[in-house]
């Protein structure tokens, strides 16, 4: 699960802002907005596939979130992130709008490409309304397709996998085939992921074992790439609580074949609430090991100034339960997502003793306010 980045969208959804002062918390305050009238994520409800690959309009926010750590045929490191966010501007239950422009579903998509010496980020918006059988954005379960205009993630055959991702903008393009022989992972309690000590959460599953192959186009050149990709799917009606500020989220592919997902939701200073930590190690078999939050250490080694903010781009992560220590460092600092709801997200390298402490991955950090 990962980067939840922003359901940000939400912002768009809600002209009325909640009580919490957004000035302390940046744009991510929207993730904590009220959820009256929407369906609520609850533990104990089994996920159903392929239905749950598609959209869940009864929930307020949802995303399809793909990151890929890629090696080019030139031997250099690349990265790609593509996300489709859905946000409902009105609770369900009313009649569907007669005018497709007034459809309550709004979509936002982000595309980011990290090259050995740079990073670009693009965003698009569209409403989900269907005009004469065609919508600019949406997500269907069978056959699976999630799209906004010509940015598309879809099944290429009868089954959910393999997938194809295609997106292009402004001279940059990504075209990846994604497949895996291993099963998807239901996060949290059978797909219910708690996001708050009080019990609020979301439905959440991942496919962290995707093998990616394809090409990246930038600066007029096309580079063949292959590597590891991670898909997160999450939907809920409330994500952050009003006293949560933002998060630091790690999705790491370790050389041992394990996948490590860690996040820390940071409490608002003075809110009398500590950080909410979460970690899970997925073994190469797909078996999941929930880590004791108390034993996970997030230590910032150094901060760098990016986009006027002091961001921790060099971390020491300790997993006391497993006796592991990993150093996580940004491939380069400039992976700022300069979009309407800005955040840092980019390729990181992991170093340490042994294959269980080395690898690559993606780090996402939100809620850091400018100095």
């Amino acid at each position, binding site marked *: 699960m990962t980067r939840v980045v922003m359901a940000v969208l939400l*912002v768009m*959804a809600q002209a009325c802002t909640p009580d919490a002062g957004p000035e302390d918390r940046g744009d991510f305050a929207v993730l904590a907005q009220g959820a009256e009238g929407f369906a609520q994520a609850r533990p104990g409800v089994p996920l159903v596939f392929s239905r749950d690959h598609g959209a869940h309009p009864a929930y307020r926010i949802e995303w399809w979130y793909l990151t890929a750590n890629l090696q080019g045929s030139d031997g250099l490191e690349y990265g790609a992130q593509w996300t489709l966010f859905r946000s409902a501007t009105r609770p369900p239950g009313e009649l569907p709008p007669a005018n497709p*422009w007034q459809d309550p579903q*709004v979509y936002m998509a982000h595309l980011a490409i990290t090259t050995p010496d740079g990073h670009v980020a693009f965003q698009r918006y*569209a409403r989900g309304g269907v005009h*004469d059988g*065609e919508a600019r954005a949406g997500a269907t379960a069978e056959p699976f397709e999630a799209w906004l205009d010509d940015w598309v993630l879809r099944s290429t055959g009868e089954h959910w996998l393999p997938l194809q991702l295609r997106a292009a903008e402004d001279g940059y393009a990504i075209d990846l085939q994604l497949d895996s022989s291993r099963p998807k992972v239901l996060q949290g309690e059978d797909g219910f992921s708690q996001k708050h000590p009080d019990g609020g959460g979301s439905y959440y599953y991942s496919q962290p074992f995707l093998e990616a192959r394809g090409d990246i186009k930038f600066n007029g050149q096309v580079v063949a790439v292959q590597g590891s990709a991670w898909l997160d799917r999450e939907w809920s009606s409330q994500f952050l609580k009003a006293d949560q500020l933002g998060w630091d989220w790690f999705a790491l592919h370790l050389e041992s074949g394990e996948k490590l997902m860690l996040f820390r939701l940071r409490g608002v200073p003075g809110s009398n609430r500590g950080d909410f930590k979460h970690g899970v190690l997925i073994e190469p078999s797909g078996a999941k090991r929930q880590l004791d939050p108390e034993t996970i250490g997030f230590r910032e080694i150094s901060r760098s100034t990016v986009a006027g903010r002091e961001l921790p781009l060099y971390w020491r992560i300790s997993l006391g339960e497993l006796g592991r220590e990993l150093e996580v460092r940004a491939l380069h600092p400039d992976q700022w997502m300069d979009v*309407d709801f*800005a955040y840092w997200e980019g390729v990181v390298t992991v170093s340490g003793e042994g294959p269980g402490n080395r690898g690559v991955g993606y780090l996402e950090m939100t809620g850091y306010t400018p100095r």
Partner: protein
Amino acid sequence: MIFSALLSHYRRHPVQALFLLLSIVMANALLVGTQLINAQSRASYADGEQVLTAGPIAYLRSRESNMPVNESDYVQLRRQGFDMLAPVLRRLVLTGEGDPVELLGIDALAFPRQGAQTQGDAVYGSQGFAGFSFAPYEVWGSPGRLEQLGWLPGERVSLRSGDQLPLVRAVPDAGLGHRLLVDIGVLQELTDSRGQLSSIMVFEADPAAIGSLLAALPAGLVYTAVEQGPDPAELTRSFHLNLAAMGLLSFVVGIFLAYNALSFSYTDRHELLRKLRLAGVTRRQLRGALLLELALYLGVGGMVGAWLGARLAASLLPGVGQTLAQLYGVYIAYPDSFSLAGMLMPLLMTAIAAALCIMVPMRQSLQAPLLERGTSGWQGQAVLRRDRLMLLAGLVLLLLAAVASVQATTTWTALAGMACLLLGAALCLPLVLRAILTLLMRLVPSQNARAGWLLADSRWLLGPASLALMAMTLALVANSGLNTMISSFRQATDDWLNQRLAAQLYFRSAEAPRGLQEWLDQQAPGVALSERYRVMLERPDPEGKTAQVELVSLQAEAQFAATIDLIRTTGGARDRFEDGQGVYISERAWRLEGWQPGDLVAACPGRSPLPVLGVYHDYGNPQPQWMMHETLFRHCWPDREPASLALTGPDTVDWAGLRDALSLQFQLQADDLVDQAELKSIGIAVFDRTFLVTNALNALTLLVAGIGIFCAVSAIHHHRIVQQALLASLGISRRERGALLLIQWGLLGLLCMVLVWPFGTVLAGYLAGVVTPVAFGWSFALVPEWQHYANLAVLAASAMMVAVTLPAVRLLRTSPATLLRTEAVQA
């Protein structure tokens, strides 16, 4: 020292100083105002259409002009990756008060973002978009436009249709100008246009992407680059020339008055200047001091004028925007402030004009022999000579105007001719008035001494007062000319609406409900279904350039033929037209594209070219048009679907009842049928608002003239003490003297109308028959509105009387003894 001695005059006569300042302010204010408006509009044209600060480089439109674009075409193009596209719907709605309001419907979410850059603007940052794009929605307008409409931010405005607009929000600096912005879905629902777009905006993209877009365009869409479309600066040139001309007119009126005030102040100080020179002050020093004094007045008057002008521009700009939007479909932004640059030119012009003005009086004052006491400046012979010269100059100008009316081919020459006409009329005034007064004196029986004195004294008054009277006449001629022009134009619009809307009931859709004709035959005998067809053609004009011509059908019913008013015809035109032996062309096609009656045009595929049988008025239609009889049209274009559908029949039919019955029978929505009266009232409402600014400027010019007259009369009365003393000593009571004064000036005001009347009408004819055809390519018939002249006459006479009241009261309050004493001192 010298300077303070000179200024001491104004301490004794503060009103004179005030009038001088006022005239400089007036000369400046309207000129600055119109200059600023023009400069702002030009800046807007240079920026191109801006929607939320984004300027499209092109539009995708329906191949059929005026037909909507299907929004699924837009969605499909976006899904192919053309993210430089954004949909637009433009609609005109009427508010509950009948104000036409232009609404631009957009999808704010589809607007281009520069790469990863955020809009980041406080105005339409994320929160702003949310309110705009989602329920309960907002309608955005520039503060100027909202003020014009009288809408308050946060309120909800009801439309005439009964629908409500979303919450009003004022959004400065978004380049909205006259239009209001609303979410596209909201606008579609408000105007019953679900599924429709007016066009698709194309934003900046790299040439390869534009190339792919062109290759991928669906058959029904055409790509029109902004620079291919009509150039707004070109389109509106004549409008801005007109505006500039009004500013200049007011400038001239102001300068006339400034000259008046300056010459009075110099004449009055004749004695002072003589004494100063006797005291050893050199001419050079005196000239320096007088120039310094003038500079002071210019500085203060100019600044106040510029400030007023800027205020004026700011308050008039929304009105100008309205006119531009409705006449040309061009939108300008309303800025919150103006640059200084627009104010410098008028200041410079005032300075030069003032310098020219004082040349003669200053020389007269400074060169006067030292040992000769000053004499009154209004010697009969000199004045007569001056008036004759002015008449001569006036006649030359009128001759030039006559030449220009025949020869004018550009807007500039047409307007220059108009200026000649105006000035010529003004210059003729003094001698014409003199002649009339002389004639009246002959008619007055000699025993009526008072009437005789009144007329003789009025004739004398023409000396000092003629400039002020000329200024007023100038303003009145312009005012009446414009008014007649506007009322004629309004009549033309009404005719045009009658021509276009000859049927009583219109269907919004061009497709007839099934079984309509049969139902009509049974339920409403006499009511016929009439269809109008149109097709766009590309034809070489007589010069060989390709022209887009709209070919329309004229319905077969007699009432339609009756609405066609032919300006030029060939023999038996109407019969031959009925028989399908030729076409009519619009005035625009005749004047601008150059087709002539008798020319052969390829109007019908598969048939030899048809002759042009006549030219009809097509007031203001920017598209050249050809017209053929419906039977011929259907023969030439058999597969064409009707473009509009209407019901016609005798007036005895109960149309309201028929409308209800139709709605019931065919399950039509309230909006599906529009009656003629409703459409006409929209047309006329739009028209009336289009000319709000012209009317406002017109009224302002008149106000300037009124103030001028007031200033001039006050100044003159200062010099009338002698006459009052004489009258008083002759035993004429105060009351009688007061009545004489009022009658005298009222008479002068009325007599000015003798000139205003014919020249105003000629000016209106000039505007309608020379300026408009040259500038726009179409003309309209002059409809003189006599009642307007009566109003103006009353206005002019009352302005005079009001102007004369205050100085007269002062004068009359003075006792005869004091008057005689003053007289003695002055003598």
